[in-house]
């Protein structure tokens, strides 16, 4: 069964950034340059946080926006064909929740692939890697 990363209760977020840092370790590196999940405060630490990550749209606008067909809908979320991508950033502009991030070094988009690694490092139950309901 396919699984999807979900932000289940953002009120529990403490801004530890373990999710974003875990995402970078996919590539065996530290930092946030290629992280596909980001956290920022709503407007001051005391007001809580926003966790920005791909929510695996049923009809993804980023795929529609790509002029060369480099973004294809996958079973869950999308996949980017980096060979085909021309680095035009149309996908970044198209995503209304800001979940298409940018790898400045390679000039390519970074979009969550719903691997669930970040959720396994979330100590406070903000993120969950959950089964996608049929249909």
């Amino acid at each position: 069964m396919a699984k999807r990363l979900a932000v289940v209760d953002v009120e529990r977020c403490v801004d530890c950034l373990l999710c974003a840092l875990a995402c970078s370790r996919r590539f065996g590196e530290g930092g946030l340059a290629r992280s596909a999940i980001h956290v920022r405060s709503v407007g001051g630490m005391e007001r809580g946080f926003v966790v920005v990550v791909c929510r695996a749209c049923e009809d993804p606008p980023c795929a529609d926006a790509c002029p060369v067909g480099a973004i294809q809908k996958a079973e869950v979320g999308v996949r980017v064909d980096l060979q085909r991508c021309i680095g035009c950033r149309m996908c970044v502009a198209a995503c209304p929740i800001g979940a298409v991030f940018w790898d400045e070094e390679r000039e390519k988009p970074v979009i969550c692939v719903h691997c669930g690694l970040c959720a396994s490092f979330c100590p406070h139950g903000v993120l969950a890697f959950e089964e996608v309901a049929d249909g």
Partner: protein
Amino acid sequence: MDRGLTRVLFVDLSRHAFRVEEQPDLFQNGLGGIGVAVELLRELCPQGTDPFSPENPVILAVGPLSALFPLASKTVAAFKSPHTGNLGESHCGGRTALAIRLAGYGAIVITGKSEIPVYLVVDEKGVHFRDARALWGLSSSFTVGRIIREREGGSGLRSILRIGQAGENLVSYANVVAESYRHFGRLGLGAVFGSKRLKALVIMGRRRIPVADKPGYSRLYRELHEKAVRSELFKKYHDLGTPQNVRPLNAIGALPVKNLKETRYPGDPPFAGETMAERYLGRRLACAGCPVACIHLAALREPYPDEPFFYKTTFVSYDYEPIYSLGTMLGGEDPEGYLKLMDEVEHLALDAMTCGVVLAWATEAFERGLITERDTGGLVPRWGDYDVYIEMVRRIAQRRGELYDVLARGVEEAAKRYGGEEFALAFGGNEMPGYHTGPGAHLTFLSGARHSHLDSAGYAVDQACLKEGRRLSPQELARALFSEEARRQVLSSLVLCFFARGLYDLETISNCLKVVGLDWDQESLEEFGKETLRRKYAFKVREGFDLKELRIPRRITETPTPFGRLEEVELRSALEEMGRLLAG
């Protein structure tokens, strides 16, 4: 090794200029954090430098594990302290370490003095100098953060360090606030910022950090993460936070109450961690890279007196040390009063610990008639009267009138002017932390390089000895604290949170360093710790410090500890042994 770490950013506020130097040797030999900062301080701060002169460098340093491993979340600041006139070293969490590392620097050095108030934005490309004239004099450090937050980019990738009115007015224990609730708290970094007309420092970056052994890195990270979230090591910080200390310290009679005239509340202390959590805990926060989330925010709901059904809810962070200094030291009975005072201290950006000890001294001095209403400007400080204390801290931050001007320099100066030295609770010029557990605690305050309880945690040695029913000789105690302080130099060079000390033994540290491409075995780390501590001590001696001349406030030998009354001669003899160990 990551070359980004070896880059040192030099900022000259006098000329509004900056440059970056790669200093691989500095980081090869000094690791990072305090190991690097103390070396830069020795080099860049000429002997006898006035802390408020443009020459005094502000050095911020991170280390090879920063942003890479769990709880490697701290930044070290080194400077000449305007409060003690000697070594200034302060540690801060929040996003500071992550931001500095991801902006591509191992250290940031700020010297000079700007002609007009400025704030700096540091990113991967360098430094932007921004006019801060419109921010100067704002009554709240929170507002400063709010304005900069909206004006600058990098949301979620940045750290915003700022000072308040106390720093602008050179209160010698003004602090620097990061991310609203974390601080470079002690020894007056905020006043050094103020003397340079530096209102704030924004640091942002999202660089990647390469490691030498990729699979090894992920494996080791997971192992440490599992340990951190599963083990009991962090339970106390996680659940109640540091205020879980209040009840146990009260129970053994080691909780300083009313300027250490007393050591316990007869009933349950009003600020127990359990009570605070039950009544006020509104949100928890973590430093970047920390699964523990020890930062506890109280939600304080207050009605406006002038309009019915109109409320405000303020979030105030609470921790053990401010609870001690602004709560129990002031004989407080009312947690809401304490939270309101704490909130004001945050707005003004003062070191909460020193601030509380100063207010406690003033209350006792008033009781004894050393100062009168003529001095206080009509205010009557009384134990637990928070409305008066709130007004007093405002006057201190603004240095309004002679008394407050003196109080803005700490209890040592206050006692020199008004008397009451025997109950002026400062060690090496820095006000006392919240432990009257026994000789260990006080030996730490006296001999620790920062005169901070965290230097060598003598309070923990005391508590362990109490449990085991034994007492160390002065020499044994000195040796135990020396070796602990030396070990902590390794942690503060990497830079790890001290709460992680149980997670990171030297073997683990050696493995972490291997993964990032550095070869340090346990023995060389141990040696490095001792050497770094001795370097700090050498700097202090160069600047006129002498262990033999330390003042021991009579109050600490008069008020019994759980071990009974302390003898000054015992502490002196431990200090003598410490002097031998530090000289090497």
